[in-house]
């Protein structure tokens, strides 16, 4: 996008058109309007406005950066022009929309949208306001490019922190509501009411704190690292054990702090972590792109459902056969059947690579769903009515003392811990090295004596086992199994987690699940645009950072060996979300 063109003005025109196109698209998709209902800073900035601001700002920043040789004034003017042209597209939309009814084509082009875009004003004044708004955002972008490098990161982190905390204000309210002492101290920072974000003072505090933390983080980290390294080995072990101990205790106490709703969300996130860890073996370690991964999840869920449901009989909504086993009896079978399905799928695709493999696995996933939906298997799978009332895990006397959310929380936490352990051990084993060798070059791997057949099948089987496990717990947790829970989008969702987090990187996958599944789950109005954003993210990741946000070292090397050596400066330590387990 930032090709060096002859004149900054031409760049400005082109970037302006791109900015305008993006702004127009997001506006007509209804994002600006929907997001406007959520305030980030009460009365100052809504999420909708900040969306527009960030478009012009980022592209204006790009314009200023693409001509480093031009004089300061020219760069500033070019960025301003970029923002102005961008906003002119929206002026055009308002002008057109007020004369012609666009709603038959674009359902989101409502009169309320135009009022919103005009910032509540009318007539020529409103258009002038819009133009000034766009130009100012573009100019701010140029201003950002002037900030010295070492302050730019902290500045951006500060802004992002304000946005994030502003978005999560409702949840923070709920969470700290249980601790009156905390509420008394933080009340002035959070606006009252629903979806109102931070107060201006609160925003300032969050911004400054986040900025300072990032500014001094490298220093603090450096000092503590040198200190720890200076210690004798035994002491270092103690510190590591202590750190993990604190993490474990915090995780164990979490449901008490989070309350039932957030605990439930974390359970869903952990189910996705389980799936993503499994897919990470198939895609990340072994390099086999599996688009039908949800099939194994479905097989786990259906096994759990069929083996444990109590709704058996000839009536509608019931299946004809089932042993009504307990959760714990059914769980190994769910994993076993998923493994069998993994091997069964693995054999026909042994000879296929890349693209073919992707399509065939996708087909496999769809076949499983069609079979579950069809009338042919209805007596056994319930068809579109699904299976209800699978068993709940029983933990003896503990079951009664725990709420159902906490019960699943502890169960899933234990499973996630076990699966992470297995995944790490597998990665570091001879098997893991075979997978990675195969990922990098199948022919060479074969030549050095790796058995492709067993290596591939083991990857499919272990991935399938983890998905089956996740599916079985999912079935029990949700309490019903319907075929529509197992569509392609679920596979894509997990794939997005693995890719954005970093293929092959276990901490990356966990962080990916938290951000890509947890956040949309918490911010319900985003969920409509969830897959739109995922799609954009997948493309952007592949274009700019194919190794993922938290990359695995080998993978990163492999992806960058093709580009010219030293072509781009390595970005310094990025602020990594959810730094759990990054040792």
């Amino acid at each position: 996008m930032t090709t060096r063109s002859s004149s900054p003005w031409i760049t400005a025109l082109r970037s302006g058109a791109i900015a305008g196109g993006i702004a127009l698209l997001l506006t007509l998709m209804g994002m600006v309007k929907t997001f406007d209902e959520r305030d980030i800073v009460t009365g100052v900035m809504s999420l909708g406005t900040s969306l527009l601001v960030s478009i012009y700002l980022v592209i204006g920043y790009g314009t200023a950066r693409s001509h480093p040789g031009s004089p300061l004034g020219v760069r500033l003017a070019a960025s301003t022009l970029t923002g102005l042209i961008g906003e002119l597209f929206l002026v055009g939309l308002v002008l057109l929309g007020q004369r012609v009814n666009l709603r038959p084509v674009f359902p989101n082009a409502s009169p309320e949208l135009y009022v919103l875009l005009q910032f509540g004003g009318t007539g020529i004044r409103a258009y002038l306001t819009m133009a000034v708004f766009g130009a100012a955002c573009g100019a701010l972008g140029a201003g950002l490019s002037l900030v010295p490098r070492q302050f730019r990161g902290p500045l951006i982190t500060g802004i992002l922190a304000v946005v994030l905390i502003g978005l999560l204000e409702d949840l923070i309210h709920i969470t700290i509501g249980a601790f009156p002492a905390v509420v008394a101290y933080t009340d002035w920072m959070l606006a009252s009411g629903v979806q109102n974000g931070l107060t201006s003072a609160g925003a300032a505090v969050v911004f400054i704190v986040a900025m300072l933390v990032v500014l001094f983080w490298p220093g603090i980290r450096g000092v503590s690292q040198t200190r720890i390294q200076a210690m004798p080995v035994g002491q270092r072990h103690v510190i590591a054990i202590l750190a993990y101990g604190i993490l474990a205790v915090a995780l164990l106490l979490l449901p008490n702090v989070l309350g039932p709703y957030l605990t439930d969300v974390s359970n869903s996130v952990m189910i996705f972590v389980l799936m993503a860890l499994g897919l990470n073996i198939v895609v990340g370690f072994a390099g086999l792109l599996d688009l039908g991964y949800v099939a194994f999840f479905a097989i786990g869920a259906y096994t759990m459902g069929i083996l444990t449901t109590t709704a058996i009989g000839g009536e509608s909504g019931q299946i004809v056969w089932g042993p009504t086993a307990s959760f714990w009896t059914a769980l190994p079978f769910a994993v076993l059947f998923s493994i069998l399905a993994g091997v069964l799928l693995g054999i026909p695709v042994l000879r296929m690579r890349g693209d073919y493999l992707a399509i065939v696995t996708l087909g496999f996933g769809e076949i499983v769903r069609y079979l579950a939906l069809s009338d042919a298997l209805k007596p056994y799978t319930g068809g579109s009515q699904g299976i209800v009332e699978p068993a709940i895990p029983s933990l003896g006397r503990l079951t009664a003392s725990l709420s159902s959310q906490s019960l699943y929380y502890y169960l899933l936490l234990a499973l996630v811990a076990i699966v992470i352990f297995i995944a790490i051990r597998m990665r570091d084993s001879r098997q893991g090295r075979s997978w990675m060798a195969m990922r990098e070059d199948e022919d060479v791997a074969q030549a050095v004596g790796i058995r492709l057949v067993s290596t591939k099948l083991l990857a499919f089987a272990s991935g399938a086992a983890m998905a089956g496990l996740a599916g079985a717990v999912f079935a029990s947790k949700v309490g019903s199994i319907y075929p529509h829970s197992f569509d392609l989008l679920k596979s894509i969702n997990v794939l997005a987690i693995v890719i954005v987090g970093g293929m092959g990187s276990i901490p990356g996958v966990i962080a990916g699940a938290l951000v890509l599944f947890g956040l949309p789950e918490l911010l319900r109005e985003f969920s409509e645009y969830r897959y739109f954003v995922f799609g954009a993210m997948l493309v952007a990741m592949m274009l700019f950072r194919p190794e993922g946000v938290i990359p695995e070292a080998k993978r990163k090397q492999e992806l960058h060996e093709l580009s010219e050596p030293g072509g781009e400066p390595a970005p310094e330590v990025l602020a990594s979300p959810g730094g759990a387990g990054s040792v």
Partner: protein
Amino acid sequence: MRRFFERYDLVDVIMWLIAATILIGALLGSVKTVQSGKYSAATWVDLTLSGLTQGSVYALIALGYTMVYGILRMINFAHSEVFMSGAYVALFPATWLAASGFMNENPVLGLIILFFVGALTSVTVAVLLERIAYRPLRRAPRLVPLITAIGASLFLQYMFRGLFGSTVRSYPPMPRLEGSIPGPFGVEIEYIQILVIVAAALMMLVLYLYVQRTRAGRAIRAVSEDKDVAALMGIDVDGTIVQTFVLGGAFAGTAGVLYALIYRQITFFMGFIPGIKAFTAAVLGGIGNIPGAALGGLVLGVTESVGTILFLDGYGVPAPYQLKDAIAFIVLVLILILRPSGILGERLARTKA
């Protein structure tokens, strides 16, 4: 080393066993269905005809897959969205032309306008896709453009959903296209079926001649053979690649309008199933092979339409048509096991397959 070869052969045996089981199952099912005498000859002809119609649409989409695959060695996963975009955007002129009565007075001109709008939209989407998402990744490892394509597909689907809403929209009724002429065995051949089959056949003929006989077509073939050598011969590789995306987009857009004229219903998600089917058709015919894509489309359309009932009804499977899509996927797996080069394809080198 010997043990390794033993294992390898075992895999072959298992794959052949799977394939043989499916084929024998299909054969037995067919015999049972025919013996049951539940269906008359007219039904079979009717099913074949609708299979051919459906297959023509698959063939048109498959051309886009096959040409892009031939030239870039990647599956353009977002091609199904290129198809969808044409069908979707042509809905608006269709609605206006039908409402104003223009469609009734000048059905031919009206259809040409619809095809033009559909093709233009799809071409735009295809070219933007190539420019933004695929071109920067031409030298990247294989998995990278594939994931990009999946992301682009998701992006386009949900962009259309956001722009035009998630409801199912329908094409207006077009009285001039309704009606039929009598065919053999007392079958009625609908006008729309004739339109689809003839339009597809004409377009594919034109494409074949274009690729085989013109200078630009020769450039396309040269680039798909070897990009670097083609560039040395003075061929504009980037331009040629864009040209294939334009051709594939135009065909997909036309296919989208034809599809919409048959089924009427339009959603943002409509591209997925035809897209996968068309890919199957492209593989069936031999990927990278243009007449192969046409043949593959027709064979798949008929297999799906006739085969679903023929193979499954004899076993007393209730509502076999629900498994129509599963049949298409099984066909795909079978071909990849039995003959990965497709019906007309040459034996591909391992780098191509």
